[in-house]
């Protein structure tokens, strides 16, 4: 898997962390009924989160920027990746596809061509009308 190779690439095992352990501990504690957090678990979670940050950035970049020989990683690339990958499903509400809203509004507008166009700018009214 290309994926695995990338994560392995230029990885040197190390006991140092970049992210602050105390912050990661706070985040872990915010999850319900997390019991005691040992130093070892805290270290592992911090490392794991660091790997995730790099994994997410690299995958999104590879999927969009590298192909288009574009060198800027944008929000859209991330939301596209989240939409595509099964293991990133848990981020669907965190990194939603922005384009979808516009498309959705466009669809709404087309569907109800008789509706007034006053609230073009305000995205607040997005009452969904299924079917």
């Amino acid at each position, binding site marked *: 898997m290309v994926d695995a190779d990338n994560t*392995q690439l230029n990885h040197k*095992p190390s*006991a140092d962390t970049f992210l602050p352990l105390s912050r990661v501990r706070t985040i872990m504690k915010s999850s319900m009924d997390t*019991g005691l957090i040992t130093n*070892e678990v805290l270290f592992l979670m911090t490392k794991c989160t660091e790997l995730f940050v790099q994994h997410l950035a690299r995958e999104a970049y590879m999927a969009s920027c590298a192909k288009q020989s574009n060198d800027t990683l944008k*929000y859209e690339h991330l939301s596209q990746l*989240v939409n595509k990958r099964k293991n990133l499903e848990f981020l669907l509400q965190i990194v939603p596809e922005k384009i979808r809203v516009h498309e959705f509004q466009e669809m709404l507008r087309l569907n109800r061509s008789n509706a007034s166009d006053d609230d073009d700018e305000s995205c607040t009214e997005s009452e969904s009308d299924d079917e």
Partner: protein
Amino acid sequence: MVERIEDLNLPNAVIARLIKEALPDGSNVSKEARAAIAKAASVFAIFITSSSTALAHKQNHRTITAKDILQTLNELDFESFVPSLTQDLEVYRKMVKDKKESKANNKKDASTGDATASSSSAVVVADSEEAA
């Protein structure tokens, strides 16, 4: 308990550095993309924590172990992280062990009034005493 929601954010500078390290030289990251990655990372940590906790509870353990986390990663389709993390964990465990040993040695040295205690171990001990 979390008092402020900002307490769940990871530091921007560190996130930016990690991203930069992962991408080829000369590539840029939009502010929005960086913020999204930072948020995603927090959610990832919570997600893995609660999944590992659930796994530990299923085995009638009250606290999560490193093994629970690694197994959770496998189950949640992040198995590509496991080899690297396993290596890191080995290094970490060795470091903790060395720390303990040098602390014990240093205590011995101190009790015999040995002034030649190696400076390197003295630093490590100072570190761990701070944590204690």
